[in-house]
């Protein structure tokens, strides 16, 4: 079993790097770090970057997670091959492109690319945001899955994550002190559903809510509060088909292991404020679509 250290980054593909970078900076409020013809990266906290937009042939959509040693990469690859998944080690060029010492990648059963990285770069300088959005850091990533049960087995059996709670068939996964770092949502296609940034508190969440309205950014869910994690959330459309969220408050993972709780599928299980939900995957889940049998 591989021990995940932390969630590191989300890498997204764009064919319009200029407008994607503008969104990251002006709308989300992140600090621009590297910028060239094919890459724009953004800082949200002590990590060198947590969001990367890329275009061109080296662009991939992926989620990056840190492991501690290169041996962990070998162990992970062995386990993943045992499940019949395609995986491999990153080249020196791949590592340099991501500012990590070593890395491995694999495709889950749905086709999501996950990257495991060793010694990713931290910033020696504190985070200085483009605007006062109150961002505390990258909080979690929501992933679509076309086969939840099989994809979940990768996380729980190879990567050592545990299910915190269920919302319908969707699973919240934890591997550190947070209630969840990864959430798997049943869907008809793979891909990152949302990248979520923590903001200081409810005041910052609501200020951002009004600011997004002024900037005419479509809010697709929230402001609301998640029954499972008790997080406040505000989810809005990004420059591509990946959503972004601001989240605040929320419970930490219990120190004692506890049973995962089952919450309702769809918007009812995802917001206890009754906020309007325009996310197709969530509304489908409420009606037992997404090809998942509703067992609860």
């Amino acid at each position, binding site marked *: 079993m591989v021990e995940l250290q932390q969630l590191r980054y989300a890498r997204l593909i764009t064919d319009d790097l200029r407008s994607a970078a503008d969104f990251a900076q002006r709308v989300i409020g992140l600090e621009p770090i590297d910028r060239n013809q094919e890459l724009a990266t953004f800082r949200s906290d002590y990590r060198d970057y947590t969001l990367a937009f890329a275009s061109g042939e080296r662009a991939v959509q992926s989620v990056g997670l840190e492991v501690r040693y290169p041996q962990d990469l070998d162990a992970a690859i062995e386990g993943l091959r045992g499940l019949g998944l395609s995986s491999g080690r990153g080249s020196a060029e791949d590592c340099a492109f991501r500012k990590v010492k070593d890395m491995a990648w694999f495709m889950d059963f749905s086709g999501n690319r996950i990257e495991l990285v060793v010694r990713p770069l931290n910033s020696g300088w504190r985070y200085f945001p483009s605007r006062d959005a109150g961002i505390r850091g990258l909080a979690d990533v929501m992933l679509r899955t076309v086969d939840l049960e099989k994809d979940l087995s990768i996380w729980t059996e190879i990567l050592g994550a545990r299910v915190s709670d269920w919302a319908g068939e969707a699973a919240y996964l934890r591997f550190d002190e947070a209630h969840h770092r990864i959430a798997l949502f049943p869907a008809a296609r793979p891909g990152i559903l949302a990248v979520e940034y923590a903001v200081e508190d*409810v*005041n910052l969440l*609501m*200020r951002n*809510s*009004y*600011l997004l309205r*002024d900037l005419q950014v479509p809010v697709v869910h929230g*402001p*609301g*509060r998640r029954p499972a994690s008790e997080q406040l959330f505000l989810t809005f459309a990004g420059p591509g088909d990946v959503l972004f969220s601001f989240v605040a408050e929320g419970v930490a993972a219990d120190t004692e292991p506890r049973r995962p709780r089952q919450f309702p599928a769809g918007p009812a299980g995802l917001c*206890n*404020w*009754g*906020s*309007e939900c325009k996310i197709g995957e969530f509304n489908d889940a409420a009606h037992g679509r997404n090809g998942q049998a509703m067992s609860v």
Partner: protein
Amino acid sequence: MPRTAETAKPCRCERKVAHVIKLQDVSYVRLGTADLDGATKFATDYLGLEISHRSKDSVYLKSDQREHTLCYFHGSAADQTAAFEVAERAELDMAASELDRLGHRVRFGSEKESELRRVRSFIAFQDPTGNNIELVWRPAYSSQRYHGERDAGITGFSHIGLCTTDAARDEIFWTKVCNARVSDRIGDAALLRIDEVHHTIALFPTDRAGIQHINHQVASGDDVMRSFNFLSERQVPMVFGPGRHPTSSARFLYFEGPDGMVFEYSSGVREIADELLYRERQLPFDAKGFCEWGAKPQIKEFRN
């Protein structure tokens, strides 16, 4: 505060006050309406109050342990009254003579009126703007706790906004003739406290007399947001918020009820424990003075 020629009518309340009227709490609001059934439906199904009792032409509604805190009666929508509780029967007589001395017409409520209001006795008068005010003694409490028609999380009727046609004059009335203190000002609108709660009366400059808004406290910020979605889905006009007041730090939501009356839910209102150390603050009369989240008011009295 500069007084314009228009507002420089003789203000008798600036004379030396012989007796300060000690308001203990805001007790209830009485609102006339041409559509009693519609108003009742709003108050119960939407606002979340509980019907306490009905009379031939009135509905009395409950929001906390008190017997009622809102009354809708069949009549003109312009007929609005706010009532405050005093502690002693003698306070009513002293208040009556003081108000009379200052030139306010005072009327003692009849036994039948007192019975309908579920109070022992009361006096009625108008403040300098012409707002109908009642002072009540021994308003009834209920033996049964409040259980709303919907789970709005209401913890009680808490404060009112009052219209003022001369903010400086009325501030003097409420702070010198009565025992209110200024907690903060938004432009010339004074937020007044009569106990430790940041404000129980708020005076909003406008061109009419009447109740400007009616506030109920809810248990949490979550309740404010739940009601925002609940009421929005039912097409209740949202006029301000959800937001957070920089003055009282309360999270709020304002929406319109029957006859254009503005209702507010709020949670987390600040309390002022130390009267000696507290100093009122001046906030700008604009969206930022009313909300620190960036909500923009659609309420006439909150806009320039």
